């Protein structure tokens, strides 16, 4: 499986922005992850080939950055901040609540492949904590009630077969 034409075109458009090809590794990984939900060994190889780099130069980048999913994630990736700003406002209680509702522990994916729940460290919105990132979207100032409302909405959207939950502002034509 090679990189899709869309990704190749997009990377070609980005090429003149950087003096080296290696600088395109992270943009390429972001695009692959957007398309397939994760970064597999195969796609790392494809990127390395496309950018004329040794495989290791791509792989070492993937393992360094936490945003790249090395395993498949659910259709909706819930990332709840557990760092100090959110914790002081009760994010641990929300985490308990989500674990109970989804019947999984954080770091796991539901068996039907719909949801992944992660605990992350600081999303950079401490003033409006607790913060929950749903795919790309930030949801701020949460409490149990709002969280329930949000999870109900997401449930309905998944049921309705929506594909870009939490990715509404994505525009395939432009980077980023």
């Amino acid at each position, binding site marked *: 499986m090679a990189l899709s034409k869309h990704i190749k075109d997009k990377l070609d458009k980005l090429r003149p*922005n*950087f*003096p*080296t090809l*290696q*600088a*395109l*590794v*992270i*943009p390429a*990984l*972001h695009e692959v992850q957007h398309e397939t939900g994760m970064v597999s060994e195969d796609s790392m190889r494809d990127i390395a080939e496309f950018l004329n780099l040794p495989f290791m*130069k791509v792989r*070492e*980048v993937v393992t*360094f*950055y*936490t*945003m*790249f999913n090395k395993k498949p994630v659910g259709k909706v990736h819930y990332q709840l901040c*557990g*760092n*100090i*700003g959110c*914790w*002081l*406002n*009760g994010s*641990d*209680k929300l985490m*308990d609540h989500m674990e109970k509702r989804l019947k999984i522990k954080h770091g796991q994916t539901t068996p039907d492949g719909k949801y992944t729940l992660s605990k992350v*460290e*600081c*999303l*950079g*919105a*401490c*003033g*409006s*904590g607790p913060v929950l*990132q749903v795919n*790309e*979207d*930030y949801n701020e100032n949460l*409490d*149990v009630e709002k969280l329930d409302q949000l999870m109900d909405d997401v449930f309905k959207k998944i049921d309705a077969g929506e594909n870009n939950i939490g*990715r509404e*502002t*994505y*525009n395939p034509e*432009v*980077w*980023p």
Partner: protein
Amino acid sequence: MMEEKILTKHINTLNCHTLDFYLANGGYNSLKKAFEIGSDAIIEEVKKSNLRGRGGAGFPTGMKWSFMPKNPVDAKGNPKPKYLVCNADEGEPGTFKDRLIMSKNPHSLIEGMVIAAKAVGACRGYIYIRGEFFKEARILQSAIDDARKKGFLGKDILGSKMDFELFVYRGAGAYICGEESALLNSLEGKRGEPRLKPPFPAQVGAFGMPTCVNNVETFAVVPYILEHGGPKFASLGTEKSGGTRLFCVSGQVERPGIYELSMRTTLRELIDIAGGVRGGKKLKAVIPGGASAPMLTATEIDIPMCFDAMMKAGTMAGSGGAIVMSEDVCIVEATSILLRFYEHESCGQCSQCREGSHWLARMFVRIEAGKGTHKDLEMIERICSNMAGQTICAFADAVTGPVLSAVRKFRSEFEDHVRQRRCPQKIASRTIDAMEIDRGRAHV
């Protein structure tokens, strides 16, 4: 308080992020002025303004710009390009100001960067934004596209014969990439590990070329400095730290958020402006400048939030993010949470930091669970002295700051944990269940 606002003046207006709005309010006038007065005068004006880096280190911006080589050449005598990089990898717990600037006032950042490019002679700029800020990156990108259409970016800007291109580059979730040399490595598509200094970025920066790295807020106030003059900006702050600053207040206060205030504002005033401690509780501790600043106790908060006064008080102004903790919070647990963050984010390049942050995190979990010993407290001091100042970057110092201050200033709490073999606060808060409010509860 009627204080002058620079960045947050129009923040509540609808569509304040658009170019039309920015132009209608005098936007890009400073850029025209910058082209009239030329590079040296720009740097002189910024020096006069006493603007100090808003990312955390507080380095004088004018001086940083003057370190950029005038006409760098490579070994063969060909001229080298110079780069300008904006550090928008905001990830320090307690800091969330750059996100506001980028989503509500992106053109002040762009204008500031073009002025800076004129000052240091850069031909290209990169805005390194943290990967999680999807929306902000898109707002920024469309702002850049708008600015280019109007001729504020690109070739021959406003007929000045200066070319400057600006690109958005998204990171991928690594706190350490906020360190400037790690950021440059990341920008080159490598692992974000800090580099040994010297050489400093002004000599060997992005892609091996001379590079100037500044924070979002630093760039964003530059248009104001040129419009109103350096002395005016300096007069808004203290003697050595000019201007106003975006202070972030988070944690257990009534109205957490971002407040643009003079650098003269004291920490106590800041907390009062944010509505005081939530629920009328007593203040226990404040981390004044983002998670890596040493904590202050409730009696130590009558100091101005400027770089020098904070340094004198044994802490740092850092990125201006105050994290407020009320009497309900168990300091051992709070520090343990912070350490979990540092353990996760240490890049692993230097053993002191990689191992130290890991062991500290484990020890704090143990103490919190009531399984610590008195020896542990001495051990913490020893580990910290082996970490601070021993590594390539300042991350290890950032770990030891809050840890040492917690152990020293709240020693009795640690000793209680050891002696009682449990968290005293947890038991106390359970018995007053009825009084607990939904938010801001320390223990669940």
